[in-house]
């Protein structure tokens, strides 16, 4: 057992309001530079939609991630053979137009243009060439455009949905969408690291953050292809690739990453998860159906004495083990089993997990709106009794099965197509709501509450815990950041005796006696 610590994230999609505050916080700190204008290390997508860069999930186009080959796995579009053979021209590299051409407006024209009969306008200009352009794309160009033919219908996750299901999803009355905020997943089996010919990309051992050494990167640009989430970006100005650094300077000083700190909906959780590094290869190369399970099996219980012992032997500090025990992400992912990785079929073992949204499933009408209800599509759930929520568990899970959002779609996103996994998580989310309605309103028969909880694999106590962490958790509960122990790290870098007595306030050179 090779126990290592990984800083992992959970995004609770039910709470995301799609405000893009995270993206702006990140942009202002990290990517507001020449060559990086088009990069959004954090971006928020409307689902269903094509995303950013366009159709990034379609690996037939971009050849990202790993694929299974005779029992083991190999990079799909990069790696030793393909990477070095295609080094002069990478056929699978997205170009700037797949993202968007960055632009600004000539605002000064509004003020300084000479008097005339027409209103002055601020023309958009390209941030690459400086010449006027017609804006064709933006990072969130399909924001809220769930039903549109150009975006939602071209969503790669529609695969496996019947034509009728797809059609039903896009009817105006049934149209639903949710937001998918994305950052680098800081994977356990990162394809970007594996694809880098010059070895510039690495995973930090202490916390698992994946970084690109800007001094070693030589613009072989294979990481852009290899990352199936397209979260490694090529800076066309500096000729170096860049990616989300999980705000490690902030993490090391005990602050949450900027995107998480600024999250208005408080959807983001961050904490340490201990995992067994010996099982990475086996987990990444397991069968598609068992990918999620084998990834979750790698994650270790931080309370298990054996795990603690092995972690200590491996040099994981006590403070990190303690942080793992308080980790909100461990609870969501492992303890409650309510969070799933995004596209596990890419086999990179992403360590950013999502609580899938229940919201579109819950949307329904009560019999107060009988007239409206009759106009609805028969598949749409319509409650005929007096309850706002259908309290029979049969009806309850029935709602999930006949969700306005087909389970298959969710499963394509979060569980490599396994509908049962998504269904279980949605049941848990629903059971917690039923439990809370029972606590606060008390209009649901007790046995039905019990039934709902037990069928979802929860008890009242756990449901209460889930509710607390979902709705009421404060900053320190949402972000449990292990100390970076710089005081010990510095001792590895220099012997304190070397500098003892040689520096003081106000001195940059040694305060030595002059000549």
């Amino acid at each position: 057992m090779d126990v290592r610590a990984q800083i992992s994230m959970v995004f609770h999609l039910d709470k995301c309001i799609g405000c893009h505050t995270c993206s702006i916080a990140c942009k202002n700190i990290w990517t507001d530079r020449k060559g990086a204008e088009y990069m959004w290390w954090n971006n928020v997508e409307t689902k269903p939609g094509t995303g950013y860069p366009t159709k990034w999930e379609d690996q037939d186009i971009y050849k990202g991630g790993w694929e299974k080959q005779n029992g083991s796995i190999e990079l799909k579009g990069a790696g030793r053979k393909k990477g070095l053979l295609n080094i002069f021209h990478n056929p699978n590299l997205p170009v700037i137009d797949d993202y968007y051409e960055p632009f600004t407006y000539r605002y000064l024209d509004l003020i300084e243009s000479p008097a005339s009969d027409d209103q002055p306008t601020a023309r958009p200009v390209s941030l690459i060439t400086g010449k006027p352009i017609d804006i064709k794309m933006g990072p969130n160009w399909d924001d809220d455009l769930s039903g549109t033919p150009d975006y939602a219908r071209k969503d790669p996750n529609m695969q496996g949905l019947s034509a009728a299901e797809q059609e039903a999803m896009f009817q105006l009355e049934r149209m639903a969408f949710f937001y998918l905020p994305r950052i680098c997943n800081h994977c356990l089996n990162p394809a970007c690291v594996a694809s880098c010919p010059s070895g510039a990309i690495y995973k930090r051992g202490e916390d698992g953050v994946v970084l690109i050494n800007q001094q070693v990167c030589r613009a072989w640009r294979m990481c852009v292809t290899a990352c199936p989430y397209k979260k490694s970006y090529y800076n066309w100005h500096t000729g170096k690739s860049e990616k989300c650094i999980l705000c490690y300077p902030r993490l090391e000083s005990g602050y949450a990453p900027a995107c998480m700190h600024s999250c208005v909906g408080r959807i983001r959780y961050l904490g340490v998860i201990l995992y067994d590094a010996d099982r990475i290869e086996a987990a990444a190369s397991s069968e598609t159906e068992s990918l999620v399970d084998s990834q979750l099996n790698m994650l270790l219980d931080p309370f298990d004495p054996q795990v603690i012992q092995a972690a200590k032997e491996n040099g994981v500090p006590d403070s990190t083990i303690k942080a793992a025990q308080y980790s909100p992400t461990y609870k969501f992912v492992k303890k409650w089993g309510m969070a799933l990785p995004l596209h596990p079929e890419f086999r990179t073992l992403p360590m950013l997990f999502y609580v899938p949204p229940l919201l579109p499933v819950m949307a329904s009408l009560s019999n107060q709106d009988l007239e409206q209800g009759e106009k609805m599509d028969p598949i749409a759930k319509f409650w005929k009794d007096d309850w706002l929520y259908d309290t029979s568990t049969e009806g309850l899970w029935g709602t999930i099965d006949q969700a306005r959002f087909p389970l298959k779609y969710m499963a394509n996103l979060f569980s490599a197509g396994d509908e049962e996994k998504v269904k279980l998580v949605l049941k848990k989310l629903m059971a917690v709501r039923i439990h809370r309605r029972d606590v606060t309103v008390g209009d649901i028969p007790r046995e039905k509450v019990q039934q709902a909880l037990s069928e979802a694999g929860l008890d009242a106590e756990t449901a209460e815990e889930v509710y607390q962490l979902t709705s009421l958790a404060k900053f320190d509960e949402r972000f449990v950041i292990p100390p970076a122990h710089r005081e010990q790290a510095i001792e590895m870098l220099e012997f304190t005796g070397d500098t003892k007595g040689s520096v003081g306030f106000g001195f940059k050179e040694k305060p030595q006696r002059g000549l």
Partner: protein
Amino acid sequence: MDAFFNALNNFFLIGLPYIALFVFLIGSVWRYTSTRFKYSSLSSQFLEGRQLFWGSVPFHMGILFLFFGHLTAFLIPRGVLLWNNHPARLIVLEVTAFIFGIAVLAGLANLIYRRLTNPRVAVVTSRMDYAILSLLLLQVVTGLWVAYSFRWGSSWFASVLTPYLWSVFALQPDITAVSALPWVVKLHIVGAYLTVLLIPFSRLVHFLVVPLDYIWRPYQQVVWYWQRKEVRRSGTPWSLKRPLNN
């Protein structure tokens, strides 16, 4: 007049190679150690991908073949001469090399055309890029010219140029034979020296860091900023030697 040509020959065939080698060696060390952030192949594929294919691929394939061809003639001239003993083999070698030369020319022409016409690529083009492109164009044009007009290059390179180059490396430059070569050949030689000279100051540095170690390194890389196991072990002695990851 003879004195003037002698001086020119001495400068370009004796002085220049030493200047070029000296600047290349010192410059490469300086470039690698001091300006590592600027050390990159500066790919522009992200801004324009399709035209690049018809430029970059033939250019690189051709230049690789020609580079190793020149290198072979420099390292094992006897082997080349032996190979050329048989006329059929000589023709095969010359024709293949000429085809690769044409590939370089075509690729380079595409690359230059792309640099000049694509407004996005123009933004990321420096004056050094134009200098390098012009120099390479000069090299490939003179190279093809020499190969076509003064046959058979592969043989007289091995018997005339290799001894000269060896003499330069042996610090006893002997230019008697080379001075008698046609001026096009000399232009090609001077262009080669200038290219070597400019390597450390241009994007050509990427050829010094060809990522061959990728073939044998493990795919995944984990970097530990400080060896926690060592810190925890009370028996670890203090060392004044700084760890590698400092």
